[in-house]
């Protein structure tokens, strides 16, 4: 009887919650568990590579290399609220607290895997860095190379303003050819075009479904909130090109469509729709967004999860990959960021925006004060900049952030 009473209580508590969890979260856990197992197995078999989030993963995958992602691992460190400890392992070696907390998590956990979540990432046989997301990755992967002995490959994609020039494209394309040489030599494998096309197709399918789920958030009420997207984006970041990734995004899209057709929102009482800019504070992602959900605030769009778009297709797959991976959000100038935010605010019918100035991520946060002004000018909606970090909770002052967000919300009264 007591158990039943407890269950009833729990159900009614769930009913009262402002936020509706996705059923797909269960499937996500399974997919991510598989990712961990596959990573461990690949490491044992000598075919594991660590990759940066914006690396053209389709090429190593087509060559039989299994990827794993230190940035995603940083998010795990953050979510488990051990950022200060694991980053501390790197700081003890002399790394500055100013260094990216993803880099510190990765270096710290490589130094002390036994004291880190999941016992650190499995040992890599190669380190594949692409600087389309930031310049820190090169020195970070160099440091990991010193610690693990795995060789580093850098795919250089210089940042640019406006349109990508032909010489830029040719340069990045030549980098992809060098990548194939590097992988062939390091792993004693070769690339079959047919296999690359197959992987690229899987990757495009997953990205296509992901994009459709994101775009469904234009509806009122929005079927997904920020934390939903930040958690369900994991497979599109880490397992692009695998068949089961496409299955996961089909399941997610089905659930999103069902919510849309029944008018079910990600939060119970949607009143204010905001845009989120930058990586989230992983250590308080649910607390932060659910706290705002209780006040009727939903985030139907953000600049981060929209970054995984673009399909590798056409006759020349290398040229297509060079175009897609050069044109990522963080590799372009300030105007491209302002345009993207403006477009999202208009298309998703948003009332305002929150920009998270992430101490770690200089490439993402640089220029936010200026873009805030420009976006308000272009859209007429107010925004606010809050400061903190994605992993290092020591840099996150809740009271100060609360005041800024509250003041923004008071502007809508």
């Amino acid at each position, binding site marked *: 009887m007591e158990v039943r009473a407890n269950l009833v209580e729990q159900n009614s508590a769930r009913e009262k919650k402002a936020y509706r969890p996705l059923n797909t979260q269960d499937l996500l856990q399974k997919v991510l568990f598989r990712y961990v197992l596959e990573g461990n197995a690949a490491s044992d078999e000598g075919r594991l590579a660590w990759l940066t989030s914006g690396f053209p993963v389709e090429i190593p995958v087509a060559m039989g290399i299994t990827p794993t992602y230190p940035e995603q691992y940083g998010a795990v460190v953050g979510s488990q609220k051990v950022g200060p400890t694991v980053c501390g392992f790197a700081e003890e070696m002399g790394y500055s607290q100013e260094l990216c907390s993803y880099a510190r998590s990765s270096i710290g956990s490589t130094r002390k895997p036994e004291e880190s979540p999941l016992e650190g990432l499995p040992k890599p046989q190669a380190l594949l860095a692409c600087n389309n997301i930031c310049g820190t990755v090169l020195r970070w992967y160099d440091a990991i190379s010193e610690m693990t002995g795995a060789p580093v490959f850098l795919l250089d994609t210089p940042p640019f303003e406006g349109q990508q020039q032909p010489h830029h494209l040719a340069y990045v394309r030549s980098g992809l050819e060098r990548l194939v040489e590097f992988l062939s030599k390091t792993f004693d494998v070769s690339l079959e075009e047919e296999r690359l096309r197959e992987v690229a197709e899987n990757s495009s399918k997953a990205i296509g479904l992901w994009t459709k789920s994101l775009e469904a958030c234009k509806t009122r009420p929005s079927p997904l909130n920020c934390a939903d997207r930040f958690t369900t984006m994991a497979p599109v970041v880490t397992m692009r090109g695998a068949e089961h990734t496409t299955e996961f995004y089909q399941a997610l899209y089905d659930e999103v469509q069902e919510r849309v057709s029944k008018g079910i929102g990600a939060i119970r009482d949607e009143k204010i729709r905001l845009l989120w800019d930058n990586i989230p504070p992983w250590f308080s992602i649910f607390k932060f967004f659910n706290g705002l959900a209780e006040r009727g605030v939903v985030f139907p769009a953000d600049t981060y999860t929209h970054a995984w778009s673009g399909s590798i297709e056409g006759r020349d797959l290398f040229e297509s990959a060079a175009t897609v991976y050069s044109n990522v959000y963080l590799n372009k100038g300030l105007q491209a960021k302002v345009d993207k935010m403006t477009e999202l605010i208009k298309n998703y019918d948003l009332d305002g925006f929150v920009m998270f100035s992430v101490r770690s991520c200089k490439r993402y946060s640089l220029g936010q004060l200026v873009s805030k002004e420009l976006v*308000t000018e272009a859209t007429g909606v107010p925004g606010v900049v809050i400061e903190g970090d994605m992993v290092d909770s020591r840099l996150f002052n809740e009271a*100060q952030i609360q*005041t*800024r967000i*509250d*003041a923004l919300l*008071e502007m809508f009264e």
Partner: protein
Amino acid sequence: MSQRKLGIGLDVGSTTTKAVMVDSSGKILGSHLVATGASGASAAKRCLEELGRKSGADTACVATISTGYGRSLIDFAEKSVTEITCHSIGVHHLNPGIRLLIDVGGQDSKVIRVGENGRPTDFELNDKCSAGTGRFLEVMARVLDVSIDELGPFALQSNSPSTISSTCTVFAESEVVGRIGAGENPKDIAAGVHAAMASKISTLSRRVGLTTPICVTGGVALNPAFRYYLSKQVGTELWMPDNPQLTGALGAAILSLEP
């Protein structure tokens, strides 16, 4: 007399706690200010008791809105509103023409663009660092061996301000100690300290946009040297209410009158 016609605003700041009582027309009936100390809740209680004693009203029956960093500690308040909105409303009540508000408190500084209806339309805060806050001046006053109230008038006696390059409280402290050691005139150093702080606040203000007329509030607004150097930096005269520390509490009191 119906107590509903009165309103109270309680501003629990990091350094001082302020209470203001208004009547239904927004006229200030009384105010009180105490040091916040270690407990915002007890400072708020002391403020209210004094307000009740001065006005003869039963403060427990008057609608109260809390604001400031300690706003959530005040459980008897009908609601809490951020100091950003409250300062804006308070200043607008006193001078509806004001379009930009610079508030420099003990632990933070804020610049607020005031809309025509008195609500903020944009703002910027400096709250991670004590540079550009009252705390910066407190530390400098201690190093220069001058009381915080005397620091401004002392600095205004200088004809040739020193250049203080750092606005970081910690680094500026060592810089000032160095200047003292080098035999520079303390008045010139004090003037340099104010100029450095004004430069920091002026930069913050430019981020929001220097729309005139501009108002200064907060405890630091009482310092004449700060007003002098800030006015020079932003290139315009600054308007200051009679009680610049009370505008947040006043705004909260005005909001408490709203149905």
